């Protein structure tokens, strides 16, 4: 940990992430305006001391909506990546480590999910469980498992015949121990890349699904949704797209910087 704190990029990442989390948490207790309050006179109002990010097409305060949107987006993205990552690690490590028929069968199932469009999974889930964030997280999380699983599996295949695994085995370490204590830490850099990319994709997928009416329902704000709504208004109100976009970049960047330093 001390070593980590010495790294500049880790500190930068930590600062960004802490700020983002603080802002998100603060958004629970405080926001300058009601994020759903509409004011005709403020339609597309520019940046001003009262509205530091301006207002959207309904005259709603963009800053308040970004605060509220961070919460939604963090929840959806974290939930999705968590399901995808945990699922992927379990599937990928077991198949990669043991191989054989088990590997073939599970990886084919994996292929099946991979080939299945996330949109279709989400539509099916929405019709079974109704619209909502939970449905979206579940659907996206499942859709994300295969890519994590592949990544982890190839790392395991690469590592399982390496010397250090052999020596661990000779020392009498069990399979579970080898998988989780020996190989997994080595797969960490690759996994971390996937987590960051996955996080990014989850934010986007959330916006895409909102377009189909699945997931976050208006007037509730989410960053992805704001970004896609703002596309039509980018000339009139560039800030509408820019601020949520920047916040997404910051979120991912903070994680990325921290992640990078932790294995370098």
């Amino acid at each position, binding site marked *: 940990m001390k070593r980590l704190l010495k790294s500049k990029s880790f500190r930068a990442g930590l600062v960004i992430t802490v700020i983002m989390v603080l802002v998100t948490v603060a958004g629970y207790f405080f926001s300058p305006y009601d994020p759903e309050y509409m004011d005709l006179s403020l339609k597309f109002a520019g940046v001003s001391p009262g509205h530091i990010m301006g207002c959207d097409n309904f005259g709603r305060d963009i800053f308040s909506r970004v605060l509220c949107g961070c919460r939604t987006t963090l929840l959806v993205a974290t939930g999705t990546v968590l399901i995808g990552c945990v699922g992927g690690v379990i599937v990928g490590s077991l198949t990669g480590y043991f191989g054989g028929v088990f590997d073939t069968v599970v990886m084919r199932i994996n292929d099946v999910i991979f080939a299945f469009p996330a949109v*279709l999974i989400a539509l099916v889930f929405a019709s079974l469980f109704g619209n909502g964030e939970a449905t979206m997280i579940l659907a996206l999380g499942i859709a994300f498992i295969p890519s994590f699983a592949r990544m982890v599996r190839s790392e395991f295949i690469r590592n399982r015949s390496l010397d250090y695994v052999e020596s661990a085995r000779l020392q009498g370490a069990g399979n579970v121990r080898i998988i989780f204590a020996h190989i997994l830490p080595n797969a960490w850099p690759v996994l971390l890349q996937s987590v960051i990319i996955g996080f990014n994709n989850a934010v986007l997928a959330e916006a895409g699904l909102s377009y189909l009416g699945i997931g976050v329902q208006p007037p509730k704000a989410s960053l992805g949704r704001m970004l896609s709504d703002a596309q039509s208004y980018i000339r009139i109100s560039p800030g509408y797209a820019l601020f949520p976009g920047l916040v997404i970049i910051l979120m991912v960047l903070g994680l*990325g910087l921290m992640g*990078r330093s932790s294995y370098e």
Partner: protein
Amino acid sequence: MKSVLKKFLSMFITLFVVSFLAFAAFAVIPGDPALMRLKTNATPEAVEALRHSYGLDRPFLTRYFSWVSGLLMGDMGTSYTYSAPVSEIIRSKLMVTLYLTALAFVIMTLISIPVAVHCAKNDGGLTDRVISAVNQVFMSVPPFFAGIIITYIFGIGLRIFVPGGYVPFEDDPAGFIYYMFFPAFAVAIPKIAVSVRLLKSTIMKESKKDYVRTAYSRGERGNTVLYRHVIWNAMIPAVTFYAMQFVDMIAGSIITEQVFSIPGLGRILLTSIEGRDYPVVLAVLMCVAVAAVIADTVSDLGVIALDPRIRE
């Protein structure tokens, strides 16, 4: 060779499971292709008649097996929306997406390999640090957002390409590549960042290994060692990575197609899911699944070809 055969066999099984699940998915979700075509001016009788002509009034399993048997005979069915053979519709869309992905892949490879080699050689240098910082930011930019920004900078600001000015490859290959360059670039950006990072770290890891030191001690020059041994060996994990990136890029292309309004596989997949045009959706699924399996196989073969240890 046996493993390739096995792969294709399991590919077919995968495809059938996928197609069955997709068929089942359409049975679960609300929406009716006949209604989608007739919209709000529909009378219940007209909808019923259209359902009949689509064969939708038959039981689920009958429909599925008639579709599968058609597929085995090489007939992908007829699109509900376009009243045209699915194979015809898919072929052109598939080519568009493949061209886009291939172009993005070429861009990624061309940029990432030299940059990664450079960074590995000058690890910790000024350029390396700058590139690494830029990389980190690029990795955090959603492709969607990258698309919008590229459109505005190059399309509207500098006016060096025409947003939405897509021309089919058959009509004008040069125009096609010219138009596709920026969308492909948008697809490639995050991938370049990831790939530089991965290549650099594998090259560095590789160059710390004993055989490299031995080579140096034998008196071989730095560059020779680098190109002759290190990069080649570093390519083994990279091949798996690149093959997966290719499949990933197909998915990325699908999003980017929306931003740049390119009529490829992504657009037809979304519109046919929305329009409940199962024959088309199933055909697209088959294409994506085949691409995934091929990439998988290629990466396995690539690893075998590059790594003498596995070859033996």
